[in-house]
């Protein structure tokens, strides 16, 4: 039952050109244009080609994850979620499928930007390191999936889309996913280090450098997950109560 719903929703998602455009094409093109610029410096302890690869992979992943969560808003407004609630499919499964699909949408950008880095700059990581990188870049989407669902369940479609874009842009830019945080003034750097986007990319930077992600970063990701999870749960209950 849940599998049928997952298949149905995956098909719909794959056909949505916005996802491909913003989460895959956008970061790949950005990488191809800008990854050559900062050569010389080392960023996050890595060769810039690798550091920027991970930043932009994270950028695409967060874009995709948030976007999928926010589509819930349209489905709610269209009465689709209400229609599903009068079928035997439990409401909890609907949320599970949404969260799963949101987090899975992290894979295409990470893989695509990785390929671009490989082709353009001969960036080579071992297969084992790639496996860890993909796994962490997927697992690390949890706070963003929850944030997307919070917006999807909490906001009307008119507001959800611009809010989603704004939140994404602020988190991505200030988190150092586009321009490296190392170039920020000190106060902004400190802010970046508190954001989930920076700590999410840090999972990748550490992995590429052959290190385990620092505990402080993991704790910050967990803390953001708890906050977004609480907001998402509140928004979900409120929307369900309204029917």
């Amino acid at each position, binding site marked *: *039952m849940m599998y*049928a*719903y997952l298949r149905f929703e995956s*098909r719909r998602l794959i*056909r*949505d050109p916005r996802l491909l455009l913003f989460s895959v094409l956008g970061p790949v093109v950005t990488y191809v244009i800008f990854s050559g610029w900062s050569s010389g410096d080392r960023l996050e302890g890595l060769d810039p080609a690798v550091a920027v690869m991970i930043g932009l992979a994270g950028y695409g992943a967060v874009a995709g994850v948030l976007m999928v969560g926010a589509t819930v808003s349209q489905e709610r407004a269209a*009465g689709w979620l209400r*229609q599903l609630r*009068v*079928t035997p499919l439990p409401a909890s499964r609907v949320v599970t499928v949404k969260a799963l699909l949101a987090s899975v949408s992290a894979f295409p950008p990470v893989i695509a930007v990785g390929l671009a880095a490989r082709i353009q700059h001969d960036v080579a990581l071992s297969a084992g390191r790639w496996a860890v990188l993909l796994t962490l870049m997927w697992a690390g989407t949890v706070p963003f999936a929850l944030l997307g669902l919070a917006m999807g369940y909490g906001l009307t479609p008119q507001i959800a889309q611009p809010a989603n874009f704004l939140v994404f842009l602020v988190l991505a830019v200030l988190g150092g996913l586009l321009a490296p945080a190392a170039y920020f003034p000190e106060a902004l750097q400190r802010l970046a280090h508190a954001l989930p986007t920076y700590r999410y990319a840090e999972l990748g930077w550490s992995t590429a450098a052959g290190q385990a992600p620092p505990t402080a970063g993991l704790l910050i990701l967990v803390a953001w997950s708890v906050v977004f999870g609480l907001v998402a749960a509140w928004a979900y209950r409120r929307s369900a109560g309204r029917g």
Partner: protein
Amino acid sequence: MNDVAVRLSGIGRRFGAVRALDGLDLTIERGSVVALLGPNGAGKTTAVSIMLGLTSPGTGTVTVFGQTPAAAVRAGRVGAMMQDAGVVPVATVREVVELARSLYPDPLPLDRLLHTAGLTDLAGRRWDRLSGGEAQRVRFGFALAGAPELLVLDEPTTAMDVAARDLFWETVHSYAADGHTVLFSTHQLHEADRFADRIVVLAAGRLVADGSPAEIRALAGGRTVAFDRDGTPADDLAGLPGVRSVEIRGDRVVLTTDDADTTDAALAGRGFRGLEVTGSLDAAFKSLTTGKDD
């Protein structure tokens, strides 16, 4: 107990200061086609939502096949077509009804479902690119997919044209003839009159009338349409739809009719003045739901 599909007892529900339902008692027998009739704001959609477990009743109890609504829905015994529901991109008609089938334990065969809902020729089309009436049929197919024992339709025909409506009701009737229970809400009296075995009239959250269409119609009393002739020939008036007799009182013509609304519609545009309709179904409905004659 076994022959009861839905039982509402003393249901009350408020939304803020608005009392949507006020002590509603209603029992729906299995295998019946029941119309929930009332003007906008009468509480129809709230009553339907409560039966489906989407809204909790403030007071009172509700059972569907002796279970809670949520349990009945979970068991696949209920299918529903919700009011004002839209469509989601991007899925084909076949994918949408296939999804519905796969959510129910004992669905209708796909071909039969597509045929019954009038979707065979639309199966490969995108749901979000259909006309309003066609999209509505997809939602009907979705509701019907699980062969539910209770089919609930909230204002189902709003987006349909006349031909689509007739086909739709024909389908609903043949479904009910197989022993399924159908409950539909409407604010159109003639729809309730033509297609239900039983009409339950709601107004301001209360049940104001309950009976067969004939009984509800009888509440209306005699029905006449009167107007000034202004010298126009009146020879063909007896042939108008619904007309039983024509009486000419000087320049005033009084038609006695089975269906004042249809007769009234047929007269429209002929320029008669002083048109007066008494005891029409709509007038009866109005008097039932507002508590005063006019």
